[in-house]
């Protein structure tokens, strides 16, 4: 399979990339790792007239701490996240999720920015970013702006990103010291998108849940923050009744598609189980 014809551009600065995107209009698409876009182009489900490859922009890579936030350049690959001691120390849930994305070859090329900007409900990082309270830094022809991950996703493949904007970095507040975390992902096989997945970040105090945030992957046309489910466990010791309440509250907001991964009822049911398991495992890790 061969993609349709396009013109290839390789800018060396964000300003040049934004200029290209705004000059070329809707026919242009930014190219990050390409592991969603290139297969779509080969299937002719995407036929952009111009590709603006972001690999030539040095400033889009890297992981640094800025006060109480970790800022990750959009072109940082999943492989680089997994190699990072900084991430292992500060945001271990990113390691847990990144290693469940696709396969090693895809992780060498696939980027954090591409994963969160594409708006694919099957991608793992968006729900995680909502759970962590991350913000996305966008650069466009009218300057830059920050959008909270929670406000970014509007529908499947529809996001707050304007056609001439580029997501340049992701800024994640450092979770509290001693926080517990877990990303539970059910999939049919290694490398698959989630049948259902849940991210949990929580803190415990005196054996009870003090704070909690829960995100859901591939259980709706956008990633979800399960706020009611999180509320249901705060102040509890995660006893069976509270866990059940949280799972039901999470299931109540799920609206997954029926596809080869299973019918709606099944995906909601296992979605509830992912929430339960993630809560339990996160609590075990909290101290």
């Amino acid at each position, binding site marked *: *399979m*061969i*993609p*349709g*014809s*396009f*013109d*290839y551009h390789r800018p060396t600065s964000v300003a040049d990339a934004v200029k290209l995107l705004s000059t070329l209009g809707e026919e242009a698409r930014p190219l990050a790792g*390409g*592991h969603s876009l*290139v*297969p779509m182009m*080969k*299937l002719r489900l995407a036929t952009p007239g111009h*590709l603006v*490859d972001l*690999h030539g922009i040095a400033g889009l890579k890297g992981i640094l701490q800025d006060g109480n936030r970790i800022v990750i350049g959009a072109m940082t690959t999943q*492989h680089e996240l997994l190699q990072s001691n900084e991430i292992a120390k500060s945001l271990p849930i990113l390691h847990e999720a990144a290693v469940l994305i*696709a*396969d*090693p*070859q*895809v992780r*060498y*090329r696939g980027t954090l920015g591409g994963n969160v900007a594409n708006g694919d409900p099957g991608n793992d990082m968006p729900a995680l970013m909502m759970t962590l309270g991350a913000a996305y830094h966008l650069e466009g022809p009218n300057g830059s702006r920050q959008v909270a991950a929670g406000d970014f996703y509007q529908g499947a493949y529809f996001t707050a990103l304007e056609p001439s904007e580029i997501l340049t970095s992701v800024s994640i507040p450092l979770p509290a010291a001693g926080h517990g975390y877990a990303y539970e992902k059910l999939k049919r096989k*290694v*490398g698959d998108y989630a049948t259902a997945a849940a991210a949990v970040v929580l803190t415990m105090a005196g054996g009870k849940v003090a704070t909690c945030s829960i995100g859901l992957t591939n259980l709706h046309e956008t990633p979800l923050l399960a706020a009611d489910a999180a509320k249901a466990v705060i102040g509890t010791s995660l006893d069976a009744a509270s866990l059940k309440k949280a799972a039901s509250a999470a299931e109540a907001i799920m609206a997954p598609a029926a596809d080869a991964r299973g019918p709606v009822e099944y995906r909601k049911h296992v979605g509830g189980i992912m929430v339960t398991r993630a809560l339990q495992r996160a609590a075990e890790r909290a101290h």
Partner: protein
Amino acid sequence: MAKTHITMKVNGAEVEGLVEQRTLLVHFLRENLQLTGTHIGCETTHCGACTVDIDGMSVKSCTMFALQADGSDITTIEGMANADGSLSPLQEGFRMMHGLQCGFCTPGMIMRAHRLLKENPSPSEEEIRMGISGNICRCTGYQNIVKAIQYAAAKINGVEYKEAAE
């Protein structure tokens, strides 16, 4: 269609070519350079048959444009034998442990295992299985592929390979 001139190092040799912008790296390797050891399997980034080593990374060459590899250093299965033409430890491992049946996935398997062993010279069975999870084999059930990689790891580390008890 305007073509772009690209140069890269492939298996230690400087090569060049004219490519369309949409030419995929795997097509450049196979059709321009006649290096047909790199296979095209699924064409949708799942099977890993087209895996090559680019600047120290295992990459599915069907999911990258040839001009994105301009200036890079690539190793394909044709570059895996020892300088004297004898089999490298991985190739020998696949031969000795019957790590292939039809052989279609083998170039991708060896290229992926090559990078895996560079990053982790003594992988556990679990690490090998996760490490080759982007490569699909429809013949072997993976059992002998895992053994072939274990054989190669032992050989590279200068220890005797002992087959784990079933």
